[in-house]
């Protein structure tokens, strides 16, 4: 077990300087993620361009893994269609949990998250943002009237 597998340079960089940090207003989709185990909270807003994610931002307090994962995710999903986002999440999820998984695409810097494989207690930190993104997309679908409060996603 090597800590450098978990806390790689790119992860520390995104933790200390998170990209796309903040809130989009107006937003087409909103969701809040919560990891009760460590108290992490994530507020995610996104704007859609038809079927594509035009922009996405997040804010909140979290550990290095959850913050870096959210930061890298926002970079990775911009401009992608929903189907592409779903495929990306599927690949990332396998990378987080399986040692010999071969992704269906080049994951770029997202592969750095694979270090959590050796730290099972931390997998939820890395996946919280993806579940929250899914919830924000689903919220957009469910609430054309925008009366429904944003969903709360919990990893527990």
């Amino acid at each position, binding site marked *: *077990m090597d*800590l450098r597998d978990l*806390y790689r340079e790119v992860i520390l960089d995104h933790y200390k300087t998170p990209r796309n940090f903040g809130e989009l207003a107006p937003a087409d989709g909103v969701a809040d993620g919560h990891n009760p185990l*460590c108290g*992490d909270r994530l507020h995610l807003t996104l704007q859609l361009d038809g079927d594509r994610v035009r922009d996405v931002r997040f804010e909140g307090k*979290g550990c290095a893994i959850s913050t870096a994962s959210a930061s890298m995710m926002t970079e990775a999903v911009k401009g992608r269609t929903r189907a592409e986002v779903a495929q990306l999440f599927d690949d990332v999820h396998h990378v987080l949990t399986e040692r010999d998984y071969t992704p269906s695409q080049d994951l770029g810097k997202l592969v750095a998250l694979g270090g959590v494989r050796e730290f099972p207690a931390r997998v939820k930190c890395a996946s919280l943002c993806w579940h929250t993104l899914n919830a924000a997309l689903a919220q957009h679908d469910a609430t054309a009237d925008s009366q429904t409060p944003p969903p709360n996603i919990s990893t527990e």
Partner: protein
Amino acid sequence: MNARAEDPRLTGYDVAKVRADFPILARSVHGKPLTYLDSAASAQRPQTVLDAVNDYETRHHANVHRGVHRLSQEATDLFEAARDTVRRYLNARSNREIVFVRGTTEAINLVAQSYGRPRLQSDDEILITGLEHHANIVPWQMLCQQTGARLIVAPIDRTGNVALESIDARLTARTRLVAVAHVSNALGTILPIREITRLAHARGVPVLVDGAQAVPHEDVDVQALDCDFYAFSGHKVYGPTGVGVLYGREQLLEAMPPWQGGGDMILAVTFDKTTYNTLPYKFEAGTPNISGVVGLAAALRYVESLGRSRIRAHEHSLLQSATRRLAAIPGLEIIGTAPRKAAVISFTIEGIHPHDLGTILDAEGVAIRTGHHCAMPVMDFFGVPATARASLGCYTDQDDIDHLLAALEKAREVFA
């Protein structure tokens, strides 16, 4: 390491010898010697507890209070001897006041449902403090939902202390019960239970004490504290999990209805009517955790053999030196600085999330707790999502603190 502070000739406490009683402390984690600083979550067990449980399981096991056969008698004798050990440990007046339960949580739920539910009415009040563990919050919230009573909270101050005046000011004509921790699990604050019971009793209000974090460290004399209920868990005091104790003042327990129905808590059952058993069996429905009870008694005897005041002096000296050394780390803030504290240091380090600290320390073999410590209102009060918490036990030594400090240095390097 500070050899002088641990010289058994000076302190009368030989921590090296104590450590040798705990087999798990000999193991390594990730190739490093185990540094166990999570005793407030669950303490490790000395060999004498493991032996007592094993001896019971291999030689004496049968159901209690039932059979006329030899093993049942032996199991019953061990079980009831354990009750007497607990009574002596708490200095309760009678074994009828000692109820075995699954743990502190179950003990508090028992009081909420058996003492509180029949008595409380709409707009009655239950008074707790701002430093309570969820186990001393949620059962009362459930009771409030059932009865229309209200939960009143005496807040903590910035040190994590609860001022007596703040409790006194919230005791009203509607207060029906005060429920307070003896020692805060998240902050280490020791509350002045004797003074709290004095204030409450002056208004005729009974007091429940959540003693989960106090029993391993403090002298707990329920007569001197003059509390009405006292709850604790076996596994925080070097005993097994899944067993705990509710002490209750006899006349209160006597007046309370059973909580759960079943075997062992009855004298006679017909389809028309059931006559309940006497104390404490009225509250012990079903076959109990017999081996757990036997192990708990062995744990209490072990603590008595070391001496609670000697354990406390040892832990206090470590707590003070560790607090000093931690406070000197740049960016480290100690959460919980009450004047009277026991065995717990909660802290945050600027720029490093507690969860990351926990992982990095684990890689160094150092086990601490990170998170909200089942005390989310405490985290909210201090405006942090979580803290890192190092907690001490009778076996903690200067090497453990040295390892903690070295591992924290490592964490600061990773996040430099």
